[in-house]
């Protein structure tokens, strides 16, 4: 896994575990369908990413498609860092 993917998967795993979830989180975990993260946690994830990778995400990117899986989140971050 790349650095970004690893950091995101770890953050999501820790957050879900703190809430009592037991399933392992992978890069392909269905975050929304399986309700792994709540909306508030999605926002917290967004801010975590910004601070960790010095990213400035466009609020217009806060859409379900970009949070379907950790890989989708990574893709959004990489797009943002590339610009």
């Amino acid at each position, binding site marked *: 896994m790349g650095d970004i993917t690893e950091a995101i998967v770890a953050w999501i795993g820790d957050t879900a575990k703190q*809430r009592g979830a037991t399933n392992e989180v992978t890069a392909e975990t269905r975050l*929304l*369908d*399986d*309700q792994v993260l*709540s*909306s*508030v946690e*999605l*926002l*917290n994830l*967004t*801010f975590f990413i*910004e601070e960790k990778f010095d990213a*400035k995400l*466009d*609020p*217009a990117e*806060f*859409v*379900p*498609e970009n*949070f379907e899986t950790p890989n989708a989140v990574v893709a959004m971050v990489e797009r943002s860092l590339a610009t």
Partner: protein
Amino acid sequence: MPARCDVVVIGGGPSGSTTATALARRGYDVVLLEKAKHPRLTVGESLIPHFWEYADQIGATEKLEAEGFLAKAGGTVCWNGKIRQMSFRDFGFTRPALHVERDRFDKILLDHAGAAGVRIFENVKAGRFRSDEDGSTIDYVDLLAGEEGSITGRFVVDASGQASLLARQMGERSLDDAFRFMSIWGYFKDSKYVASDGCAHPVGDLTKLPPTTTVVSLGDWGWSWHIPLRESTSVGIVIPVEKVRSAKDSAAALESYFLQTCQSTPLLGQLLDGADLIENSVMVIRDFSYRPGTIAGPGFFVVGDAAAFVDPIFSIGVVYGMFSGSIAATTIDQCLRRPGEVDRLQKFFSKMFVSRLGVSRSLALPGTDSGEAVEQMVRSEVEFFGESEKSLMAVVSGLTNRSSNFTGIFGQERQDAQASGKFRELAAIEFP
């Protein structure tokens, strides 16, 4: 009262308490201004189980559990004769929805905010807001001492509820012309109630058999609620404003109209047969529905009912208050740590809350033409929800005739498929 702090929160209801507590727990100096003295009565007693997440986040769960509020099993809706029941358990909820006495519930949250380090000033009425290079300032009047003052923070959070302080000051509290409703409510002793077994039970059964929140339609778009609490039952009607313009506006006339309506409404009338209206318990509110304006801007955020309100029909008001308070606190924390990014960060908050409000409007507000942009926003927002939450919305949108906008966006076929098997349709509620 200090002259300065990090964040000033206006309002000590669930929205204000949640925002203030979340910020205090992050180490910020928060001052909360509340115009009343808690405990104080307010309406909005039915909670859906989604609120537990926000209670957990601010560490208030144990205190709320300890109070022993009535757990509710789910909902009973009798709409134009069609009777359906749903239970939250069927959508994967393991923690209960509640019926809460709001004076108790709100006081627990407010006291919890105080315990978290929030400096709370009651009997203080917030006034004018201004934002400049000095910070965000709120003028106030100390109602007991009769003194005026002002307090400046780096941000002000408007959690003033229906008063919508900032929206009114900015001229943005816009009523929905298509949706001018009023509500009259009161409290009854010894009312029967409907349990999830599809039967009406005497009030004595409440300790062993949880109630459902019972909703019965009134006329074209109106409805009534029946919410058993521990010592009484909250009963209210939501009707078009015109209905009580012709009646004399006196308290006695309104009370009489309210009682008459309750007694002549199918199912509700039967539940209240033999019950007694508690004296002086009838209250009225008009035009409680309005749209969000600017909910985050230079030096301010707006949360809870202060931002917008549609209709209490699906019991989401307190949850939305706590949700918006939670994301406001998270965003304010970011704004204070990265002040160069405030404009952009506030857009996250606005987008999330406005989109969520859009979903609730589409569920509760029939017939208005929301337009393509709003439809797209709701269509997108719904995809944030997981499968069980989508099933819940699919069931809820089929319970009344209020959700046509939502059904249009979600799709009737998809709605029927997701709702299938997750509610019960009954021929009648059985009475002893």
